[in-house]
């Protein structure tokens, strides 16, 4: 058996590396916590102009202005809980940054609205995969009372096998149909109508993006 000679093994250099590494690790953890926290704030998300469009509809909903004063930030809903998952979500989210920098001009309100459905579908799929975990940071099924008489009963008795997002989509951001019933032509026509564009403009914009 090898006799561990601690005094021989822990040299000055090793000790220094351990302390430095430990402190560095702790600092990195603090950094990640702060990083995840900061990158989950509304202020950070809306540093990209493209995200301010999502903010407009959100500010009209109880998730922004609730009577109790609770305000859900972008990250409260769209970034998972826990350091590991939050970091993972942010790393995955970097692809959005690439799209913002190298993709279509999402800062243009027309382009933004034309692409909104895909964003909505992706986001709903994300909520669905995580069984609406971020909703449940605040909402506890057993505690849901609601203002109408049977809201509590519906949530107790009619939700088996479902998570929040299965019913509650189109809750915070602009109304987008489900992927099953989405009709691109109708959506394009709506965008053209809203911005006073010639019919066919939307299709040209989308085709031009390659």
């Amino acid at each position, binding site marked *: 058996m090898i006799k561990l000679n601690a005094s021989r093994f822990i040299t000055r250099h090793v000790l220094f590396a351990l302390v430095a590494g430990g402190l560095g690790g702790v600092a990195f953890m603090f950094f990640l916590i702060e990083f995840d926290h900061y990158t989950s704030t509304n202020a950070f998300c809306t540093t990209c102009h493209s995200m301010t469009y999502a903010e407009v509809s959100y500010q009209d909903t109880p998730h922004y202005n609730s009577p109790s004063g609770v305000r859900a930030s972008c990250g409260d809903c769209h970034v998972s809980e826990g350091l590991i998952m939050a970091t993972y979500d942010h790393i995955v989210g970097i692809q959005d940054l690439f799209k913002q920098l190298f993709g279509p001009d999402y800062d243009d309100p027309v382009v933004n609205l034309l692409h909104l459905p895909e964003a909505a579908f992706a986001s709903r799929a994300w909520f669905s995969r995580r069984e609406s975990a971020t909703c449940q940071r605040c909402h506890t099924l057993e505690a849901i009372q609601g203002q*109408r008489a*049977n809201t509590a*009963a*519906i949530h107790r*008795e*009619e939700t088996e096998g479902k998570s929040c997002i*299965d*019913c509650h989509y189109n809750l915070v951001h*602009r*109304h*987008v*149909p*489900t992927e*099953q*019933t*989405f*009709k691109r032509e*109708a*959506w*394009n*026509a*709506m*965008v053209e*109508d809203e911005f006073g564009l010639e019919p066919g403009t939307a299709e040209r914009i989308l085709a031009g993006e390659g």
Partner: protein
Amino acid sequence: MMSSLPFSRSLILIPLHLILGGCCVLFAAGAANAAKVELSPEHWGNPAGERCVSCHEKSSAGLTRQWHESAHREAGVNCLDCHQAKAADVDAMEHEGEIIATIVSPKDCGRCHTKEYEEQAGSVHAEAYAKIKTRIPALAHRMTGGAMQAAGCDQCHGSRVKVLGDGTLDPATWPNSGIGRINPDGSKGSCSSCHGRHAFSKAQAREPSACVRCHSGPDSPDKEVFEASKHGMFYAAQRDQMNLDGETWIAGRDYTAAPTCTTCHMGAAGNIPATHDVGLRNAWNLNQPVSHKQYLVLFEDGGKLERPDTEAPPRRGSELEKPDGSIGKVRAVIAPDRRRGVMSLVCLECHGKAFTESFMRQFDDVVDLYNSKFGEPAQAIMMALYERGLLTPLPFDEPLEFTYWELWHDEGARARHGASMMSANHAWWEGMYLVGRNFYSRFLPQAREVAGDQAAEIIDPILAASGQHAWLNETAQGNPILGWMPPQPEAPELEPESEPEPEPAAATPADEDEGEDEEGDDQ
């Protein structure tokens, strides 16, 4: 006209056979007021639809309760049987894992209620929006504002339901249950206009109140007319004998207490089958500046069209433009007297033939009087003023245009509707009396003012041509109705002879008026 008459007679026979044929089919099916659903039950009762109920009992207890107590529920028809949609449908949406649509159109109802769907398609009800869509902007948009279309016009005539690009229904066009609604699936009409969802009660649709939402008020006061008629009087007194819940509802057999709107315009009576073409039995169009008797043109594709009998009836097989602008091939033409004949057969369940025919004569005389004395001259004067540029083409920017509009659209319609359904009050005080007052005290003075120097040239010949306004020139003819008579010239020498002379002129109309007053008191 003479040459077209024999031709139209031969055409008339075809629809009559159809009607009688339909009658036999109906009686074979149990003489039901509503046709029996022929679709076999395996086509409904979608198991997925059962799951809707437990949640909707909580989220919308009222409508679920109505459905629970409905014949639909009894027959096993659930939410999804009516509301299911295909993902490709313009108004399709995902709801709790199912693809559904909010609007259940006549086409949807027609999956089971085929006969009713086909009958209502092309009817004056189904075309109610199409008929006025080009006229809506004049009053609803220009004179008032767009908000009035949704809250006013469209509530009765129906909206063109718009599905927005995000899949939602445009709030400017929905909710709406107007009877000529243009649905996202292209079908026209709204069954729920008369059949309140989600109970779909037979009794409710047989009540006069099913029609009141639209057939009331100044321009089509059918509710008021019915209530003020003897039919309405009996209905009110004997409503408990109306058998309104009856499985079948054939006038003269299942009930005799009184007719309702449904009885005469749609209902089964004796050998007459029920129809969901509510205008089928109407010989006249009573809501025009000048009334015409109407042909009903049936197209091969099931469409329908009304044409005035001033035109030659279209030939069978010929092509004609339909209300929506498309071209249809004529399958058959129902002449106005045939339509009147069907209506009269309903009357015969309770009235004698001579009684019925004489009543129709009284009614027709009122329409003819309105047409010839007021409707036609007023229309001719207006057209002349427009043609000469004395009125701008823009409607309702000149007071005369309101006056003319009300003359035919309001009091003129009331007079004609009142006569059609036996409300003396509406035929006279609410109707023709106001037509006369409007014509002489507002319309003519305003028209003369607009015509200016050309009044004598434009207006007087039209009045003279009608031959019914010469009484205005007999200014010396007194009558005690307003409490004053011109003093009689004193002629003592010929006293016995001179005395009776003014009397006939004065006394005859006075007697008539007294007679009317008595009638008024009787009401």
